[in-house]
């Protein structure tokens, strides 16, 4: 899966906008949207919100979790716990990126939020690397990781799988030659 594909999925998330135009309900395959009343918040998918924003047809109301205090809390928790903590949105990274890139003027303290989300992301990726490392070094067959988001899985998937393949090949080449090779590792 490509990151852009994950982003595409994230664009289906619902976000509140305040339109500055008036439009009746629109009927789309994915469901009905609207009616749009100027000045009144309405829920729309992110892709539409961004489109409208780019045409200066609306203001985006940032999701509730996109708030410095809440993110700081999450960051602290993330740093404190060894395991992955639940994230505010399954697409937190993608949404942050999308909204901050296109509608940073509607989001108070956009820069701080960007930093905080990046911090959370870095912490989680570090954890992910760490667990991958212990997974490999302990030669486990399977591992269970909770609360991972799609994007996070994606960033590590191709590399991890390739690596495991590669190591498998190396190991299987090694084993027939000398069965003591493995015992040497332990010594």
């Amino acid at each position, binding site marked *: 899966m490509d990151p852009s594909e994950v982003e595409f999925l994230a664009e289906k998330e619902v976000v509140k906008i305040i339109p500055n135009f*008036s439009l009746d309900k629109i009927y789309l395959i994915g469901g009905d949207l609207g009616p749009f009343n*100027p*000045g009144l918040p309405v829920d729309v998918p992110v892709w539409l919100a961004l489109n409208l924003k780019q045409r200066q047809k609306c*203001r985006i109301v940032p999701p509730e979790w996109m708030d410095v205090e809440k993110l700081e809390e999450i960051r602290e928790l993330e740093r404190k716990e060894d395991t992955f903590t639940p994230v505010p949105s399954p697409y937190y990274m993608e949404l942050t990126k999308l909204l901050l890139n296109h509608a940073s003027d509607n989001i108070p303290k956009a820069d701080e939020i960007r930093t905080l989300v990046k911090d959370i992301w870095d912490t989680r990726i570090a954890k992910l690397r760490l667990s991958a490392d212990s997974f490999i070094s302990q030669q486990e067959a399977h591992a269970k990781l909770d609360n991972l988001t799609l994007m996070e899985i994606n960033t590590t998937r191709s590399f991890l799988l390739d690596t495991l393949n590669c190591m498998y090949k190396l190991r299987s080449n090694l084993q027939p030659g000398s069965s003591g090779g493995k015992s040497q590792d332990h010594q």
Partner: protein
Amino acid sequence: MPCERKPMRYGHSEGHTDVCFDDTGKYIVTCGSDGDVRIWESLDDDDPKSINVGEKAYSLALKNGKLVTAASNNTVQIHTFPEGDPDGILTRFTTNATHITYNSSGSRVAAGSSDFMVKVVEMYDSSQQKTLRGHTAPILSVTFDPKDEFLASASCDGSVAVWKIEEQTQVTSWPLLQKSNDVINAKSLCRLAWQPKAAKLLAVPVETTVQLYQRDSWAQVGTLSDDLGTQAINVVAWSPCGKFLAAGSIGGLLTVWDVESKLCVERQTHEKGYTVCGLAWHPSGGQIAYTDTEGCLGVLDGLSSSSSSSSTTTSSTMTKAPASYDDLFDDDDDRPLDEGISEGARSPAKNPGDEDDDDDLIPATGRARNRSAFLDDENSLDTGSLKQGLDKFVDDVGSAIVLPAAVAAPLRPVYDGPMPTPPQKAFQPGSTPAHLMHRFMMWNSVGIVRGYNDDQDNAIDVEFHDTAVHHAMHLTNSLGHTVADLSQEAVLLACPGTDELASKLQCLHFSSWDTNKEWMVDLPKGEDVQALCLGQGWAAAATSALMLRLFSIGGMQRELFSLPGPVVCIAGHGEQLLVVYHRGTGFDGEQALGVQLLQFGQKRRQVIHGEPLPLSRKSHLSWLGFTAEGTPCFIDSEGVVRLLNRSLGNMWTPVCNTRDNCKGKSDHYWVVGVHENPQQLRCIPCKGSRYPPTLPRPAVAVLPFKLPLCQTTTEKGQMEEQYWRSVLLHNHYGFLSSSGYEIDEEGQSQAQKEQQELLMKMFALSCKLEREFRSVELAELMTQNVVTLAIRYASRSGRMALAQRLSDLALEKANQLQGEEPQEEEEEPLQYTRRNTGSGLGRSGSAGGQNRVTNVLDSMMSSSKKPTALLSSSGSTGKLNKTPFLKPLAPRPKTKVQHNSVYVRHKSGFQLWLEDNRRIILADNPDLEETDVIKEAIGRFRTLSADDRSVAVLDILIPVRQAPTTIPRSKPLKSFVLPIHSLNSTHTQSMSQLSLPLHLHHVSNSFHGGPSLCGFLFDPCT
């Protein structure tokens, strides 16, 4: 000693303030939580000099041209006075200083800080500092002994201590105060004051009294109290002569005592009851300046110490109270302290200091809380105990002193009847208070007008919700506009007049098609615009001369008329103007407001003639306007939304309480718009305040309406609430159509359908509960066609008595309808009232009325084939043909009937029955799924007796069978009645019971060309 209380004026933003005079008494100097020191030449000085000393200023002192301030950067700074140039830093603390004071000569400054320390610093060499350690909590206040020997300090640890400055030791300490952990949580600021000149007495505010301690002996020698003082005293200040002592309390009471006689010589209350936190005597002694925690400055003028006749020789024995009385007073001290705690639990903690970081936020409850506490006499628990304490004191010391007889008696006659409420000021609905630097001047359904008034900029931003109306505008506010309104056509602004300039009304008529999009009008001298509004094609301004001036939107002056009282606010919509004014003086927190509703346009008239506006108890008006559909609406400070009920003689009906939706006690909703269709109350949730700040941009939330009906938890209550809400909120259709506007007919028919369905549900419910009388009452509200449905329901469920009554009712309705018809055309303007009274005469002559019932009676519609053809061919009277009932029906039934007749042949009896009864089943069990409906139907069908079944089916079949043939009306229909007779007798009985009234009903129905149910009911007898 009569004195004059001058009106308060805005000095600083809300929060703790302090005040002092300069040495000459020429200037009043204040500081506030906005970090500014302002130098006022007088109270009327419109352009005080401002010196910024930091983010917040906690305290200031001024002597010898040096201004010392305690700022939030933990320093004590010096500025030159009056130039205001920085002159270095005197000292620093680890947190902010809370109070600073000069000694009498101005050579030293003492500062108390939140880090528990008191520092005494030499003015001319700030390196010479003396630190007084010993308090275990933040320092509340400090004061110098005029002879420079001692220093007294009060602290949050509850103690008041006296220090010997040179030795830096504590001389004595009294546990007088309630403990707290910080200055902002302290009950009182406890500003101590040492008697000037004589230096004999130290005044300590303790609870509601001021205790006097004698120098050297450190014994309590007197207590000053006031019967009216029910709240803790915050600050005290000695007159320069040392004979009088002024005190300011939490509740805004200002008291001046003659210290020797212990008589209260002056008593004034703060005009709004805010906490007094700064108090200073003019060096001449004739004036007191005071500031409150809302940042306002006030002055008491005309105090003259010489006029006091009670001043006696200074050799009062009182000041020589022997030290041996110490023990007695210690006992005395403990008791009030305990009481103080219990009272402290009740009266909310005051935040004299930096209550609020955000300038735009108003402490929501502070004002109301203060006022109520002040007005509430029953709350004054301490008066008795104080008197007691005083009596005790008199007993103890009385032998030594001859006290005037009237010690405890108040000087003036006390009026303890209902207190008049200060009338609420004129305001613009949808605006935040004018003293804010960044404020909303208007937020309505069209857009937002924001006003900025800070150092860099004085500007107005206009923004439209719908950018299609107009692009956003930015105006420089050179005229100082304070009120604004916004409509689809124009922006209307007005500024109050000044000495030189008259009050102006400015209109930006952006929708004008010529190039000149702006006009301005000067009001006559001395007349100020107080409220304004825009309607469609007109603008109105209410002025201080009790006048309402109308303008056309292009700037032509139109009518003007006098208002019956000072205006509170006005609102416009379309051709309607709503004016609210003061009818008189309210008492005990109530406002006495009157309301007028005027209508312009072709029919100019006054709809509401100055009737009282029904506010909640002890509340004021907080929003006034129209719903988007044009129904007048207002909201009071208790959050109750009331809507004008035009069908109930223009009464006001409460439709929502916004406070019910609040989470916290101090949360409010700030309403920006009301919509009836869809039912929405658009408002901004404000956490801990009444108004939203301009930044971050607040988001609009939507609240539902809810009529405060009883027992809305029960099914019955819910349905009743829904029904009446629907009736109330669809009144506007009638109003709009009567005043010639286009209406959304689909919406109207939808609403009517919803109401009738609710009625049917309620009918079914009360049938189930064996409440037949109530069922009939409900049926009275139904339209004629729904009554037929109700009759069926009743007869199916075996309630023949009920069915009989209902059919009488239906007959009556039909007659009324017939009798009414000729009148209807004449009565056009009043039509809406009748239709919506719910009296059941709902089927008025409009085409919409016909449409709406079709959905309710689909089954009947489908079975009545070509009723129009039937009637027209029968050549009924010309009058009936004229009625609009005939027109709109043609296409729909036709298709339906075809569809129906195809199926009829293949349908089983049950299917037919189901088709007919589905609605009733649904009405009974509105939440059933399709399959469940069928199951339920099967169950019911089975319970019917065989006969009933055939009747039920016949009931439906016959008309269908009959339908294809068009029968001349003259021809008797016996042939169709015959099959019924051929059925067995029990069944015919029940039929006849039923069908007799039905005959008449349906005949009348078909006369009107409406969907007639059954041809077979055309009996020869009619």
